[in-house]
């Protein structure tokens, strides 16, 4: 039984159609990887799922709720979907702990003590127990991204959407973030990940989706997509990544 079912999803910006009918379902505890060339619509797809972008057509069902319904409580929906961005987007005027607890306090109305306890636990999960009082400017990129992951996890989401979580990081910092994502996977978190970390995809992904020009061109287990892609476009893209 899938937790997320996307059907016929379309999105246009003005007259240019960026998503041209996406069908995709994600099961509970599954890690689905999305790859594809720049501009193929990967970020737009993730952003439609929590409606940071308004889809122009099609449907998204998440955990029994029709996401695109007008009556859907967006803010309630969003707290059960974590999102992690390429550029971290931490709040620069708040400590790591305050970044993680803001939504706990404002959205879930937890007391400061309760929120802090949950926040510390989330930061411990990403290996940053000793950085609770640090400001983002005092943290490395890898640490900042892990705080951002803790911020998403603190709300106990049912899925986490990752948009190129390691692309802005120096190579030596990528590992720390991937390690956290591996832990999440081992803990049974459902994840939808846009990334081009091939090794990670091979090890951890249950399924790889290849997108091009607003379509899903091909999908399958990592071994199939990376070793014997059926479509010429997939083959060319994967060959480029491996080079």
């Amino acid at each position, binding site marked *: 039984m899938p937790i997320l079912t996307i059907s016929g999803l379309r999105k246009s910006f003005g007259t240019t159609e960026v998503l041209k009918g996406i069908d995709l379902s994600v099961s509970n505890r599954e890690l689905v990887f999305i790859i594809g060339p720049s501009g193929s619509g990967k970020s737009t797809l993730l952003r439609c799922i929590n409606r940071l972008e308004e889809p122009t057509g099609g449907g998204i069902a998440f955990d029994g709720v029709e996401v695109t319904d007008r009556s859907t409580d967006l803010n309630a929906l969003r*707290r059960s979907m974590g*999102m992690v961005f390429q550029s971290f*987007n931490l709040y620069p*005027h708040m400590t790591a702990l305050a970044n993680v607890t*803001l939504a706990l306090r404002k959205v879930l109305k937890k007391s400061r003590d309760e929120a802090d306890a949950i926040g510390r636990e989330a930061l411990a999960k990403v290996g940053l127990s000793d950085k609770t009082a640090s400001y983002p400017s005092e943290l490395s990129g890898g640490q900042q991204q892990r705080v951002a992951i803790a911020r998403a996890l603190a709300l106990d989401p049912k899925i986490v959407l990752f948009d190129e979580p390691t692309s802005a990081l120096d190579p030596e910092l990528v590992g720390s973030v991937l390690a956290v994502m591996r832990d999440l996977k081992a803990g049974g978190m459902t994840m939808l990940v846009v990334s081009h970390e091939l090794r990670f995809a091979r090890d951890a992904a249950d399924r790889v989706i290849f997108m091009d020009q607003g379509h899903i061109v091909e999908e399958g287990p990592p071994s199939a997509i990376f070793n014997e892609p059926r479509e010429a476009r997939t083959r060319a893209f994967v060959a480029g990544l491996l080079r």
Partner: protein
Amino acid sequence: MTAWERFLETFFKPELMVQYWPDILEGVVVTVQIAAAVVVTGLALGLMLASVRAYQVRFLNLFIVIFVDVFRALPPLVAILLIYFGLPNIDIVLPSFAVLWLVLSFVLAAFAEEIFWAGITSTPKGQWEAARSTGLTFSQTLLSVVLPQAIRLGIPPLTNRTIAITKNTALGTVIGVSEILSQATSAQAFTGNATPLMMGALAYIILFIPIVAVGRWIETRFAWRRA
């Protein structure tokens, strides 16, 4: 009489200094009160207008932009005279200190609105998205995430502007607010000697030098550090 003695006689006549310092002090109190009131209401109104503008309601935005442009374009003296001498004709009589306070508050609010608004628009889109993706509403995001950053960004440019506008309390003299300059000029007219004016000038300097110094401290303290 030597030139030096004439100079002292004109600007620092001891008897007049003794006689008029209580009046000047009274003026200082009035100036401080009005300046403090202007800073509080002007900045608060400016921040409020900038926040309302973030909601992008068309007719409200139009109103805000017109308000801001008018009070940035109009010399404060003109607004003060217009309101003080104009409103009584439609049976609204405001005390002179209230007119001074209102006009200067509006001028400060206009500049503050622009500065806070610039801070709001320069907050990266990713900040909004991160907050909204954790379920915060638009208002919660504005209040907890965007405004604190916009205010910090605005503090250095606002400090100078605030000091410049509070000095305009001296304009109160044309409508008879008994602030420093007004006390000094009436004493000057009465005695035919510039000593009270010099005392007024000294009072402004003593009053504003600490404020300028605090302003400089605030500017460096809040210089924005980013990752």
